[in-house]
């Protein structure tokens, strides 16, 4: 088996297991009340982490580039209560413009 196929099989199996572990362990039941209160907070904490990482992650450490301008445009659109499509278009449009003007 080539290196590529070993990577595909091992990474694929690991990812399938990671995604499915919660389902196997929790067995499709609603969580106990106390645990449930914590799981509800997974979404805000993980989404906030994703926003930070996907805006600022560089090849090594933090990189400030056109994504920051794009996210700033999204913030403005959100403050103006624009629909999601407009928020996404503003982020892409401003990031693209910043890159065209020379931002990394």
């Amino acid at each position: 088996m080539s290196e590529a196929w070993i990577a595909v099989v091992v990474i694929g199996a690991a990812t399938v297991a990671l995604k499915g572990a919660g389902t196997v362990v929790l067995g499709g039941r609603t969580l106990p009340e106390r645990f449930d209160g914590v799981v509800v907070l997974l979404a805000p904490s993980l989404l906030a982490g994703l926003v930070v990482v996907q805006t600022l992650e560089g090849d090594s450490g933090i990189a400030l580039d056109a994504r920051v301008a794009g996210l700033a445009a999204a913030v403005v659109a959100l403050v103006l209560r624009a629909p999601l499509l407009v928020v996404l278009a503003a982020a892409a449009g401003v990031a693209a413009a910043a890159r065209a003007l020379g931002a990394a």
Partner: protein
Amino acid sequence: MEAKTIMADDAVPVESGADGRVALDRAEVAAGARAVLPIAVAATAFGVSFGILAREAGMGIAAPIVMSLTTFAGSAQFASASVLEQGGALVAAIVAAVLLNLRYLAIGISVAPSLRGSLARRLAEAQLAVDESWAVAQEAGQVVRGRVVGAGLMLMVGWCGGTAVGVVGGGALGDPADYGLDAMFPALFLALLVGLLKDARARRAALGGGLIALALLPFAPPGVPVIAAVAGVLLGGRRPA
């Protein structure tokens, strides 16, 4: 309050396909697909990029497409293909990808209570819970099952279709970053996060998660800042009785 009661009634594990509750709500499936459509367009463009990178990494044609179908996670696939393309060790490629996908442990736990049907069915549907489909399926602290399935299928079509185009030589459109498509992903997560910040516990958890990720980003290996952000839930505090 009423929604909570309904959830409790639904909580009995359903093993039979004959029960109506196993069937997916088609309106929710369509809503999920619709909600994720603009991001699916961006995911398709990045799928093409991944296909091109994978080909340059000598992964051939079938392996990258199989990877997009099974691993179905952009950042991990880019990371492992980059390591292989630069002539790095196979183990390094695998470790990088697994670290990046550790967050799926948390997403899997978050989505599990919403899934219905046999274990095989629930496991299959859990595979469709990727960052973007899971994010658009959020409602009142729950994941809406039909929405995560509809959005996940839409993303899978785009991501795998894009990969196929990339490996067979497509790339005429150039770098998706030139169109700012990379900025759409944090914008989506922010827009969905804002909708969750109505109560103080969620706000504390979000602030905690964001700060943890920011603090770790300068030195932690890729993937670690996001999974560590999950510790933000500890800052949420107790639920008011």
